[in-house]
């Protein structure tokens, strides 16, 4: 039990070192950022950098990298307004009124993407999406599988019985991944001490 208490104390100490409150406030502020207060955010990033540079030897390295991550997040938020975090997975949205539409999961249409239409394993039709990321299928065409692929290594599959699969929201994925890695860093730091 004592061991866990010490571990907990260590993690709390580490989090304090990284000025968690400051960072959380920073995130809160970033979510309300408009083009007007870009300079304010930049000052904040610089202040954070100075604070982190003043930290003890152990805190400085993770602190700086965290800052890099935060700065990048800020850039992202600034460029995408308050839109959810972008990603680059190719998706086939579905087939409506004989039109296949493909997009990236940040919502931008997938232009000039090859669409391959299959029925019972045989290729029935092949075409490219237009500027809206859509491709019209010939009338009365039967299909059970549609594949989309581009020349940049992206690919998507769509089948008739496509169910709504659960997708982890981007922010949740990022939070889980980051907390795992931070905990790993904290735990191994604790073990060395």
């Amino acid at each position, binding site marked *: 039990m004592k061991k866990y208490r010490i571990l907990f104390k260590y993690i709390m100490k580490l989090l304090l070192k990284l000025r968690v409150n400051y960072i959380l406030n920073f995130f809160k502020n970033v979510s309300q950022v408009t083009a007007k207060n870009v300079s304010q955010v930049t000052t904040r990033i610089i202040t954070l950098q100075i604070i982190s540079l003043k930290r003890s030897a152990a805190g400085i*390295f993770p602190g700086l990298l965290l800052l890099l991550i935060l700065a990048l997040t800020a850039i992202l938020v600034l460029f995408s307004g308050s839109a959810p975090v972008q990603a680059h997975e190719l998706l086939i949205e579905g087939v409506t009124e004989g039109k296949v539409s493909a997009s990236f999961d940040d919502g931008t249409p997938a*232009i000039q993407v090859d669409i391959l239409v299959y029925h019972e394993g045989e290729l029935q039709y092949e075409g490219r999406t237009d500027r809206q990321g859509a491709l019209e299928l010939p009338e009365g065409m039967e299909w059970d599988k549609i594949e989309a692929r581009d020349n940049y*290594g992206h690919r998507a599959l769509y089948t008739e019985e496509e169910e709504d699969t659960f997708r982890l929201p981007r922010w949740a994925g990022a939070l889980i991944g980051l907390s795992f890695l931070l905990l790993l860093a904290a735990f191994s730091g604790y073990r060395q001490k």
Partner: protein
Amino acid sequence: MHIADGLLEPEVVAAGFALSAALAVYSLKNSQDRENFSALVPRISMVTAALFISSLLNIPVGPTTVHFSFVGLAGILLGPLSVLAVIVSLIMQLLLFNHGGFSTLGMNAANFALAALTAHYLFQLRRSQLFRQSWHKYLAFLAVAAATLVKIAGASLALYYSGFPAGVGLSLTAVHLPIILAEGLLTAAVVIILMKGKRVFIYEEIQDLV
């Protein structure tokens, strides 16, 4: 730059896994700090965190979108150990963001790892007689640019051997130019900051202290 599932031929998939396994072994054997490995875990996990989150930062270029990867920075900070960071971050990106694919994990990891190692070895050149000490920032930029090009070349070769046209390499290079510029400048800035302090963060300088 994560190749998705179902695009590569089985032989290329197998070659990718073999290559990434070989690189992982190479990286562990070549890091002189095997006894001191546990001391480096916090460092490795923080760099992995940066790699992991960077793929969410996209820039739309032409018909597609490209994202940051920071493999160059990982190579500079972790040396051969960056291979481990790359593999862990790719697995986490696949599980949590659906980036890449299970079958292409080997090839993606091999490309990213080769890129990180390229940056590491190029950045070592700053210690040679040919370069002045103050040129490290330019070398950091060059190392990142070269790393990104190696990554593109690896992915293009894998796609080429799976039946894609050879022009893929050119189009991939073209859409990645903004990333090369942005990532190169960011990495150079980080290197300048990290080399100013008294503490050392660059891989070879840690080695000097051990």
